[in-house]
């Protein structure tokens, strides 16, 4: 599952569960049956499980494009200075920051 797929899965799960909860409560309250509410919600949970838990193909439509290994070898990873280990932040190359 790719990044976009993970976001989609989480949102789908939340929306589906809440929607089923609202429908279940409304139906149960109007028909005066607590059992109906629990039943509809149980069906909703099962359906949501089927939709969001397995790794369906539609969660994998935005695959990450990694660089070709040969391309990576042309730009070798810079060797980090020993003193820079404490702050592996984005601007770790700034000398003033390293001094602190």
């Amino acid at each position, binding site marked *: *599952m790719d990044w976009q797929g*993970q*976001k989609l*899965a*989480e949102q789908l*799960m*939340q929306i589906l*569960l*809440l929607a089923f*909860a609202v429908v*279940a*409560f409304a139906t*149960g*309250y109007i028909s*005066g*049956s*607590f059992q109906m*509410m629990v039943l509809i*919600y149980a069906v909703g*949970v099962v359906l*949501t*499980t089927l939709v*969001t*838990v*397995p*790794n369906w193909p539609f969660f994998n439509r935005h695959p990450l494009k990694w660089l070709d290994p040969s391309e990576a070898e042309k730009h070798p990873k810079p060797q980090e200075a020993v003193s820079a280990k404490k702050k592996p932040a984005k601007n770790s190359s700034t000398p003033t920051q390293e001094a602190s």
Partner: protein
Amino acid sequence: MHSLGFRVNALLTLGVTVLALMCVIASLSDNLSVPSPSANVQVLNFNWFQKQSEGNEEVSLTFKIAADLQSMFTWNTKQVFVFLAAEYETPKNSLNQVSLWDGIIPSKEHAKFLIHTTNKYRFVDQGSNLRGKEFNLTLHWHVMPKTGKMFADKIAMTGYRMPKEYR
């Protein structure tokens, strides 16, 4: 959301939380209905009225309960426990309660009833205060919900009087 196990965990956690929330709202929805129960008890006969060897008085009576408790049942009601108590005042205690009869009403269909019975539990006074005593018959009930808060209330019926002599 990156693995199957994580997704199952997230789904179950949210699922149970939402279910709990639904139960809370269901319990709160009970406050919307205002029950209007009615009850009437008629004492038909005092079968016997004696003093026990220990000095306590005991009475046996036959009565008829007509009650309509249907309005107590909402969609969140599991059952209603109901009991009839004789309540009277003595010099020693300002309130004496003796349970005479009880019952469990499992559904709305059984909530309108007419029962003709003698006292299910013994009516014994702690002492000998009952002769000619005026007493109340109070129908108490506890509404037991499927989820949430339990409600209790009562209807007091006044103007009953014990026989003046043992029989």
